[in-house]
């Protein structure tokens, strides 16, 4: 279980996270919604140890990420997919995927490569193993990013606005893969602007507003008129999202109606 | 001076040497600046033959050791023209030409960084070539070139240390003389090093101040 307890994060005088608590249990798909600057990405970065905490505690299966030793262990349990892919530009697609499993998990090279090739095939990139990131489209790069995370066999998959840098067509490619992962029971913590998609795959949705977690509800209750929608900030957020959130299913405007 | 063998005369010798080094640097850098940017302007306006000739010559100077250039001018040229050159003249000639070579390549890059559309606009308004260089190309190219020029200046100050080998009594030669007299090379070369270091840092400081002022003027232009 990922447990976030009263986490505080400041950048200078600006408080980005003002005491946020959240848990993600195995098997859950938890989506974090919130407008830009609400602290969503920072929360993910506090969980994978890229930010130091100014207060509170984050544990991954009991391992405290503030402790360097335990963080090293915790990082074997979770894997992150980034908004801007962050692939290693000087390595082939295959090497991007196999590097950490080989060096960190010390798994045998041929086994990791076989898994990497299988993962690439499953996201429709079987022919790209020997390409370099610079030769791929954004959507292809993000699919590689997902393979790189999955090759760590993580218990928890952290996804930080993974489609924000992609055009609608590429976004659809990537979301299709994530939807499949969700149905396969992968535990995910998902920061996104794709409200409609979140509604479809999440077990729970939390809403961050100015560094505070104001709603944490099962998905159907979040979208219920007497649940999350009763909250004015959430109604405001969803109505702003409406025009661009028609990826699948009913547009958000219908929910609000 | 703490070391037993040193006298106040030695301080005077070093100070004099430093003066010669700084003077030689200032003079040759100024001449090199004028010659190098002149050559860059010639190149920019694509003067046939002359442009190519200058480019090749300056490329040769940039890609060969200054020491060999000094030998060529001080020992080689007199053998060819049957006319001896004084060490200071040979040093001045060599360092000016060498500086010009580096200035030329910095200035060419600076001029190329100014958009062709501006040149065309200025020509359309009827500016002459000289007016174009003075009012449009020059000031903008300078803002691009100032940082590399400051770096070049620090470098050329250090290059002056080579003229000691043809007998100019600069700071390095003064160190050499001092060394022969006191036989304390460790202290002497450390001291000479400190003096060069101080001179170079002062030059960097002045250069950076000049660069900031220039950039402050250029800022409203969006450069």
């Amino acid at each position: 279980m990922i447990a976030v307890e009263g986490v505080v994060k400041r950048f200078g005088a600006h408080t980005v996270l003002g005491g946020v608590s959240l848990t993600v249990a195995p098997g859950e798909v938890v989506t974090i919604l919130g407008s830009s600057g609400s602290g969503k990405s920072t929360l993910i970065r506090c969980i994978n140890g890229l930010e130091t905490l100014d207060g509170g505690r984050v544990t991954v299966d009991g391992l405290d990420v503030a402790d360097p030793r335990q963080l090293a262990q915790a990082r074997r349990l979770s894997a992150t997919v980034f908004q801007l892919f962050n692939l290693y530009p000087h390595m082939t697609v295959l090497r991007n995927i196999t590097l950490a499993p080989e060096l960190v998990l010390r798994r045998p090279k041929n086994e990791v490569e076989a898994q990497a090739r299988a993962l690439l095939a499953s996201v429709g990139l079987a022919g790209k193993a020997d390409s370099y990131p610079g030769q791929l489209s954004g959507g292809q790069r993000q699919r590689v990013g997902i393979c790189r995370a999955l090759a760590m066999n993580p218990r928890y998959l952290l996804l930080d606005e993974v489609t924000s840098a992609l055009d609608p067509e590429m976004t659809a490619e990537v979301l299709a893969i994530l939807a499949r992962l969700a149905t396969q029971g992968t535990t995910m913590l998902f920061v996104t602007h794709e409200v409609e998609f979140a509604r479809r795959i999440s077990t729970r949705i939390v809403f961050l507003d100015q560094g505070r977690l104001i709603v944490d509800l099962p998905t159907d209750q979040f979208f219920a008129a007497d649940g999350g929608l009763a909250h004015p900030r959430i109604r405001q957020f969803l109505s702003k999202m409406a025009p661009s959130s028609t990826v699948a299913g009913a547009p958000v405007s219908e929910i609000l109606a | 001076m703490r070391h037993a063998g040193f006298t106040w005369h030695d301080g005077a010798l070093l100070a004099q040497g430093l003066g010669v080094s700084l003077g030689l640097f200032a003079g040759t850098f100024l001449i090199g600046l004028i010659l190098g940017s002149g050559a860059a302007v010639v190149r920019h306006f694509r003067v046939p033959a002359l442009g190519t000739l200058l480019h090749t010559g300056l490329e040769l100077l940039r890609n060969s050791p200054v020491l060999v250039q000094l030998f060529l001018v001080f020992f080689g040229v007199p053998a060819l023209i049957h006319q001896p050159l004084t060490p200071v003249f040979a040093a001045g000639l060599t360092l000016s030409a060498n500086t010009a070579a580096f200035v030329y390549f910095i200035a060419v890059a600076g001029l190329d960084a100014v958009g062709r559309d501006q040149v065309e606009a200025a020509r359309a308004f009827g500016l002459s070539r000289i007016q174009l260089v003075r009012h449009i190309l020059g000031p903008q190219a300078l803002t691009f070139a100032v940082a590399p020029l400051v770096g070049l200046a620090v470098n050329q100050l250090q290059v002056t240390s080579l003229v000691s080998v043809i007998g100019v009594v600069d700071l390095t030669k003064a160190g050499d003389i001092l060394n022969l007299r006191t036989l304390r090379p460790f202290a002497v070369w450390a001291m000479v090093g400190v003096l060069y270091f101080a001179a170079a840092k002062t030059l960097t400081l002045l250069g950076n101040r000049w660069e900031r002022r220039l950039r402050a003027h250029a800022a409203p232009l969006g450069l």
Partner: protein
Amino acid sequence: MPFDLTVLTPHLDTLLAGALLTAGVCALGIAAAFALATALGVLAVGGGWAGRLARLYVDVFRNVPFVVQVFFLFYGLPEVGVYIDAFWTGVLALGLVGGAYGSDVVRSGILAIEPGVVEAAKVGGLSRPAIIRRIVLPIALRTAIRPLGSVFVNLVLSSSILSMITLDEVTGTARGVASETYRPFEVYAFLLAAYAGLTYAVSLGIDALHRRLNRHMADNGAARGAAPGAMEGTA
């Protein structure tokens, strides 16, 4: 006395021997400079006393003339009991000064790396040494090849100064040939052209190496400007 290069013919063997010594001292000096530049470049990026020390080192060696450094090593060190012969003084001096100039290049190469790429390696669980060796340096050195190349070309030119500490590299042998033949102009003109030709060839080689090693590096690994708003949303 008209310009006549044939006077050099009987001395080509001597000059070639000098050129080989230049090649040797430069090859070793460049190798040392590369190793030192890499180490100092990594240290200089970091904070703390190690970073400060690295930056101080660079500052000193960049602001003292090479000839003074060489004299200090060759004449100064024996006074305190350290004896190094002319050849190894040359290697050491080239390595020390090349390390200083090169480390600035490596440092800016490191600073130009997309931070997200390093973050990806961190959350992947790679150790700090593994991140430096497998991610940071391979990327930084690729972007640094061209400027590092000019540092090394300058080292080759600076190596002529080693003739001043009795090392008979090519400039030193040329001095001998010049005084023997009484044809200094021909000797030094030939030498100047030889250095220029050599450095030109080296820079062509560096350009080719740069293109080869960077042929896949379309960018620094991130989608800068790949889509509108790509850089926003650090919520």
